[in-house]
């Protein structure tokens, strides 16, 4: 194997490790969401995003708590309630039953800061309505100590 080829392999391996180290805790995670549709506004000008069965987003690890406004999607009064579970880094943190279309706020106390910059919040709904709509998620607030 030539020196040039050895050098190229060494460079590639180093690059791979550097990329993995960066991706362990990248700063852009804080702005990343999944399972949430585009922003909309309700008549009271409250901003919200609709989710289907599962959505996730990130909050800073040094926050003491986070407040998440939630509202179930109801098409008629006879609709079944929607049960929502919320997890912080895969640990169950709250469970709410939304029985009507009014806003509810889930306040979660966050564990002490971890080695990562962010904590992941997952919201899961047990059912969806037409067009894959289950819950409307308002603007969440991270509260620092």
């Amino acid at each position, binding site marked *: 194997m030539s020196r040039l080829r050895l050098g190229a392999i060494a460079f590639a391996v180093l690059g791979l490790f550097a990329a993995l180290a960066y991706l362990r*805790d990248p700063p852009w995670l804080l702005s990343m969401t999944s399972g949430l549709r585009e922003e909309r506004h309700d008549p009271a000008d409250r901003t919200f995003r609709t989710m289907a069965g*599962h959505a*996730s987003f990130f909050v800073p690890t040094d926050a003491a708590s986070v407040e998440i406004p939630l509202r179930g999607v109801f098409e008629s009064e006879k609709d079944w309630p929607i049960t929502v579970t919320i997890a912080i880094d895969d640990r169950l943190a709250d469970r709410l039953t939304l029985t009507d279309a009014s806003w509810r706020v889930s306040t979660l106390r966050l564990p002490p800061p971890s080695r990562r910059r962010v904590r992941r919040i997952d919201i899961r709904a*047990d059912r969806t309505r037409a067009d894959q709509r289950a819950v409307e998620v308002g603007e969440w607030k991270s509260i620092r100590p």
Partner: protein
Amino acid sequence: MSRWVVRVAAAICAAGYVFVYASGRAGPPIRSDGFSYYVYLPSWFIYHDSSLAAVAEDCCGGQFPDFTAIIRWPGTRQWVNAHPIGVAIMQAPLFLVAHALTRWSNLSADGFTFYYQHAAGIAGLAWVIAGLWVLRRVLLRHFPDRIVAATLAAVLLGTNLLHYATYDSSYSHPYSFFLFAAFMDLTERWHENPTWRTSVLLGLVGGLIILVRHTNALFLVFFPLYGVANATSMSVTAARLRRHRQLVAAAVATAAIIVAPQLALYYQATGRPLVSSYGELGFNFLAPQLWGVLFSVQKGVFFWSPILLLAVAGLILTRGAARNFLLPAVTFLTVNTYLIASWFDWQFGGSFGHRGFVDALPVFAIGLASLFSRAASSVAARATVTTICTALIALSLFQMLQYWNGVLPFSDTTWPQYRAAFLRLK
């Protein structure tokens, strides 16, 4: 030279992919049909469930969206997916990388977050490049390198292949493009020198062709019809197949093993090994929309990729050993066109050009290379073909950008719409 064309093609596809997603022109890669093809992977690897029920619970509150063509089978109430497992199998290596990265970065490991999305998108792109590489190998056996280079460039840029390598790369077509090229390559190698290895590979690729898109089983006619041109060559081919019947059996057995898990899934969900989850929707063989499929402004393959008309002319002009592909090509293209034209939704929903023909581009490539090869012998013909192809490639690329910008409709394009949008990017 053709080696460089494949490398440049990879760079163009990568740039197009980044452009499409960085500019927000397309939604996340796992969408529309791409969702149904992909959904097996989170179901198998994350939820350890072959019924799709657990992934339906997590992603979608228990019900898959209507656009997915995943239905609850009457009677059993189990999920049946109209789109088979082949694409998911070919996406699996990148999916596993994405799963590891997702865990590493602490994203939600639900199968639909950032890394999973782009693993599915990039897998399609990678299979198109692999398909071009294999197609190059097939073409180089029959044509000079510069002809092969021109053919590969024309196939990628003059048709909707670039679109299906970038914007809609999670659909089945990039995978079928690769598999068709590989099947042609292996068929030719087998008929030249039949070996156990080539036979097993033929079975593997043939099985995957069926698993990616069931109706593409029709493409397997390339194997028995290769080299057949008249009664004499037919008896020679038949004698060869009989002489090597053990190898043929090995190929068939391999294909059967590859297809078996799909039949098991159908059986698990419905109690039957063969089903159509399209319900009453299906083929209307008595009223095929042949004009619409071939020439209409709505989705006509020759209207949106007119360079393929040259390919058809080239197929007829094919000479030498490349002519071994002629009968299987004509048989496949004819029957496949009739099948597509008979499908209840002959436009195949939203698409740039007619996506039903992307799979067959390696076949058209033989015709294009033949035409280029003929034209190369005369200065005037070369200049004419070069000018026409350059213009058609420019038109195809421009129309692809129009589609990406939303200037051209996803389907049901009318002539007034086409005229109003002609050469307009916004």
